[in-house]
């Protein structure tokens, strides 16, 4: 299954993400979820970035709204626009879920 999983907040149910399996998993960081791509806690980057087998995307518009730029983003996350996001969900991921 090709699954796009939207993470929309900094605090969310990490266990759900840990337990999710999909043949092709895209994790989309949107809204306050973008903080996972730029912040460290206790010196460690977010566990979201370490989800095995996942491609992690971060929405540029929500990054900029919160005062971050693309070059502050962890290398493991791809910065995308809303236009890219639409293309990805309509072409590459047939199931969509929201955390």
């Amino acid at each position, binding site marked *: 299954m090709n699954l796009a999983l*939207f993470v929309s907040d900094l605090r969310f149910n990490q266990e759900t993400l840990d337990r999710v399996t999909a043949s092709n998993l895209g994790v989309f960081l949107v809204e306050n979820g973008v903080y996972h791509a730029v912040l460290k806690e206790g010196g460690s980057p977010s566990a979201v970035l370490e989800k095995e087998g996942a491609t992690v995307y971060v929405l540029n518009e929500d990054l900029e709204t919160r005062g971050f730029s693309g070059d502050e983003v962890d290398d493991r996350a791809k910065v995308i626009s809303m*236009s890219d996001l639409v293309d990805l969900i*309509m072409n590459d991921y047939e199931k*969509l879920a*929201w955390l």
Partner: protein
Amino acid sequence: MGILTIGTFASLVGSMNLDFVVKLAATALDKGHEVNLWLSGNSTVLVNKDQKEFKDYSHPGVMLPELIDKGLKVVVCEACAMARGVPKEKAIDGVTYTSMDWYLAYGAKGDRLLHIGRE
């Protein structure tokens, strides 16, 4: 092109989820997709035509008339809206009031379904 159905049970005025949903719908429409937007729970206040814009509260509802003209289908849970004092007469033009079965049907019929729950 495809059919994207978005269902949201978001919060009230100032909801980030509604911001995201309206921007996503606008972008998908611009790219030629058909977009259905189902509003339930507190997100039904989005269609209140008398809702003012406040400096501190985002109100993406002001974008809806233009998006409806572009083909966005906005459908509201009648019971949820009535329970929140937003009867059809108080809604912006072009919005449909109906019940949950519409959402289930359009969710099944479309190519993609994004369901956004509580906030």
